[in-house]
């Protein structure tokens, strides 16, 4: 039997071959189906191999060294429990996105700009999580970034997409630079780039601190931590929808993998203040992400901003895990890490599902702007149902899966008064409040996303003529919707599957869940807290069905259709409905006026004047305006000043080169 690592590696190689072949296959009539169908089969194989490795538990992983790359390092691959879990997340998302794309991709006009890069992107993500040395990690990481960049600018005639690609490229370079330096510091002056060598080395506290900060910048910029998130809401929506699903649902998780690998695995014992840094960034990410999302009326951009919020939740759990680990509370660290990793899995499910739904809406109506949608539940009932499940799951509503992981994070927060550090004692409750706050705002956000897009009356002719999407897309959406429910009502299975991963990272694990009566989940002890999604689900189904049948049988089941009542003043014009902007208005007024300096200006024409009244809302993006614009202005200024360097004579250029050489030699001579 082949080792799982070899299988996943072979799958990645096949995907690369497919990427090259796609240049030719993509031209044929059945190209889309062939490419996505093959990707589906390959990703499923890799998924099964990852599952096999994960379920083998703490079985030793195979080392694979290929004679490629730098001669004194080679290229090393290894799939331990952590990598196996992320292989599962990546390839489950990849397989379903491929299934979705068999249907969705047929609407693609610029096929050759998408088809070759899609398998390459999948291969890149798989290779990142398999890499076992810094060199191959960075190469795979960059490969993933660039192939996804190519997919972002696939529709390059749209001006916004070009800008998105530009910002993405800059931020991806910044992230890779930070990671390059991270591994440089980790490998030390002797250049032990294999992960095993890095793990064995023990850097000094100052160097560890430097590595932590660089890793936060490097992986955080890819994951979308505020304030490094700016590229994400531009780039994710710009790509074709199945790629958006992969970027939001899966690629951000690869970044989380990078963070976990570096900080929990390679860096050794954490110091207590590391968690302060992570928790502060994560709390801010949570609330800012969801507030940004609430202000959007572009469906895909709303989803992309919402990814930022969920990354915040994941990093809150990871930060708590770091804090517990620093104080040697292995069981609490295990709870926090399990919560974080479970949310990684859950978020990859529902965010991909939601992007699939947005893609289906986009193909059916050609619209991403919610202000032009509405009433799609009548035209696309199946898509609407799947999208609704995704919305409820991401809003952390029981009995679906999003609630389970957030519940576990809350349980981890409730353990933190035992932490001795005063800084954490003040920070953690505040982070808890931010988390609770963002969870409710998320529910508000998805009431808006679903309610404005699918409910009400159609706001444009495109929306009123929409047709249900194809079977492949529906199959992809419904398989993830089903998984959302299963992971919500049987969370114990998933928690137990995570145990070997957590065991390695935290040095402990959560209690075994599968043996608990009635399949409840019990983070610490039954008397302390427990939750049973299955029973809650069954109770709700039974009591709802009971009420329905009792009322229909004993009282009345008559129904009459009539025009809407609306307090006696119904208006036939769909413009009288609430829109995305007006739905968010109360929240914009309460929170947006502080965070985004939102101002509303109403211009009323004087009586007798037939001009329409106008309301304009002005909002400012605090991160972009305070952080990025000054830097961009600085770069522009410097470029302007240095412009005259272009027109120097050859002698002047040579003297500059000579001066630089002298300065470098001086530095080298004076280096201690």
């Amino acid at each position, binding site marked *: 039997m082949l080792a799982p690592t070899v299988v996943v590696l072979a799958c990645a190689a096949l995907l690369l071959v497919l990427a090259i072949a796609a240049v030719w296959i993509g031209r044929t009539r059945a190209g889309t189906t062939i490419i996505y169908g093959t990707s589906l089969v390959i990703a499923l194989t890799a998924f099964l191999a990852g599952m096999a490795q994960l379920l083998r538990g703490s079985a030793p992983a195979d080392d694979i060294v290929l004679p490629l790359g730098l001669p004194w390092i080679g290229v090393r691959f290894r799939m331990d429990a952590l990598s196996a879990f992320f292989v599962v997340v990546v390839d489950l998302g990849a397989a379903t996105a491929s299934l979705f794309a068999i249907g969705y991709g047929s609407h693609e006009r610029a096929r050759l700009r998408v088809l070759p890069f899609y398998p390459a992107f999948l291969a890149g993500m798989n290779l990142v999580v398999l890499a076992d040395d810094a060199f191959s990690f960075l190469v795979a990481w960059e490969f993933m970034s660039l192939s996804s960049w190519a997919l972002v600018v696939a529709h390059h005639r749209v001006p916004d997409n070009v800008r998105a690609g530009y910002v993405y490229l800059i931020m991806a370079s910044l992230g890779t630079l930070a990671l390059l330096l991270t591994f440089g510091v980790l490998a030390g002056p002797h250049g032990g780039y294999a992960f095993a060598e890095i793990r064995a080395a023990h850097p000094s506290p100052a160097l560890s601190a430097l590595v932590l900060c660089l890793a936060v910048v490097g992986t955080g910029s890819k994951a979308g931590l505020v304030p490094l998130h700016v590229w994400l809401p531009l780039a994710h929506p710009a790509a074709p929808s199945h790629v958006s699903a992969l970027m939001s649902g899966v690629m951000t998780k690869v970044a989380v993998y990078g963070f976990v690998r570096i900080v929990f695995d390679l860096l050794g014992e954490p110091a207590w203040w590391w968690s302060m840094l992570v928790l502060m960034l994560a709390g801010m990410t949570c609330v800012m992400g969801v507030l940004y999302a609430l202000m959007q009326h572009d469906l895909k951009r709303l989803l992309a901003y919402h990814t930022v919020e969920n990354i915040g939740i994941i990093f809150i759990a990871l930060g708590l895990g770091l804090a517990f680990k620093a104080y040697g509370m292995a069981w609490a660290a295990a709870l926090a890490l399990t919560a974080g990793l479970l949310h990684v899995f859950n978020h990859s499910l529902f965010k991909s599902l939601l992007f699939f739904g947005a893609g289906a809406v986009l193909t059916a109506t050609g619209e991403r702007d919610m202000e032009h949608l509405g009433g799609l539940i009548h035209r696309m009932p199946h898509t609407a149902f799947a999208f609704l499940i995704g919305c409820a799951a991401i809003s952390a509503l029981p009995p679906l899966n999003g609630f389970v992981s957030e519940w576990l994070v*809350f349980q981890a927060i409730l353990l933190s008064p035992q932490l001795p550090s005063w800084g954490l004692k003040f920070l953690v409750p505040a982070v808890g409040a931010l988390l*609770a706050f963002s969870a*409710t705002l998320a529910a508000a956000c998805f009431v808006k996303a679903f309610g404005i897009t699918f409910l009400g009356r159609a706001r444009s002719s495109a929306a009123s003529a929409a047709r249900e999407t194809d079977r492949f897309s529906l199959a992809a959406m419904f398989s993830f919707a089903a998984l959302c429910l299963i992971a919500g009502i049987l969370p114990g299975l998933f928690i137990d599957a995570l145990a070997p991963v957590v065991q390695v990272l935290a040095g402990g694990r959560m209690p075994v869940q599968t043996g608990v009566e009635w399949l409840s989940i019990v983070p610490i002890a039954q008397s302390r807290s427990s939750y049973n999604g299955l029973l809650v689900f069954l109770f709700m189904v039974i009591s709802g069905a009971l009420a329905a049948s009792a009322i229909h049988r004993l009282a009345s089941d008559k129904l*009459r259709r009539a025009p*809407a009542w609306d307090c006696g003043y119904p208006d036939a014009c769909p413009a009288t409905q609430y829109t995305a902007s007006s739905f968010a208005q109360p929240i914009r007024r309460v929170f947006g006026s502080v965070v985004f300096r939102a101002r509303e200006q109403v211009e009323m024409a004087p009586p007798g004047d037939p001009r329409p009244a106008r309301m304009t809302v002005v909002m400012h993006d605090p991160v972009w305006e305070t952080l990025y614009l000054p830097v961009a202005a600085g770069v522009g200024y410097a470029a302007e000043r240095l412009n005259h360097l272009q027109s120097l004579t050859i002698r002047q250029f040579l003297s500059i080169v000579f001066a630089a050489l002298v300065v470098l030699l001086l530095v080298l001579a004076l280096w201690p």
Partner: protein
Amino acid sequence: MAVIADFLVQGAQMLIVLLTAPMLTGLVRKIKARMLRRAGPPVIQPYRDLVRLMRKEVVLADTASWLFRVIPYFIFAATWVAASLVPTFRTGLLFSWSADLIAIIALLGSARFALALAGLDVGTSFGGIGSSREVMIASLAEPAMIMIVFTLALVAGSTQLSTMAGFMESSAVGLRVSLGLALIALVMVAIAENARIPVDNPATHLELTMVHEAMVLEYSGRHLALIELSASLKLLLYLSLIACVFAPWGLAGPSAGLGALAVGALAYLGKLATGGFLLALFETSIAKMRVFRVPEFLGAALMLGLLATLLLFVSRSL
């Protein structure tokens, strides 16, 4: 045998909450009317209303989808399940461990999510007003509630309501600043969540300030009956929650006999009547707020909850 008894008690709890909920609503209405020197409808009027509504046909808007018809049952189911998991007359209910306090709050959150969607479904302006304001109110009320849960959980060392009630009844509690803050915050949240004055007016109709009533404007017949019943259940749930945590006296233990159960049931009815009276008194003595004053009211609740949690993080004995 013990399992059957447990089942019976759990079943009795589910029936009790379902049957007393309209009574509580009727009682509050009656007391409010008496305080305003009106005769008021009889206490059992809500039952008559429910029966009448259930027998009527549903008039459904042309633009309503299937979701609009499912949501009342969903809201009722979520609220009923949540209400039957809060200990009323006996702790240690058979299924109490299937959802802790956080899950109960989240179940109510599910019901609110569904109701807000229902408000948007028909595509009228009133529904939109109601939904958008409801989520704005919830965006502050729910975090405040979670902070209250944190406070209680840190004091009692558990998020299970049965364990909490048991701990509160024991002498280990003592007087704590954090619990005082949590009680005030909980009352404020309960008022907002149940759409009572000063946040919303349950008696209003055709008013631009309405929130809850605006969302359910398009509902009629049995659907409306279920939503009204769920609203009553939610009020009962919050009163039971306050009673179970802050006034656990008389609660029968997990192994109590029939006598103790009877005492527990009587004590529970007494607590409900007191809570209803205090609510009516509060509602008649205060005026309704402007919608955009509500965030300040709930922001205060959130700060109180956060302060209580912080105090407990600083010292377990505060």
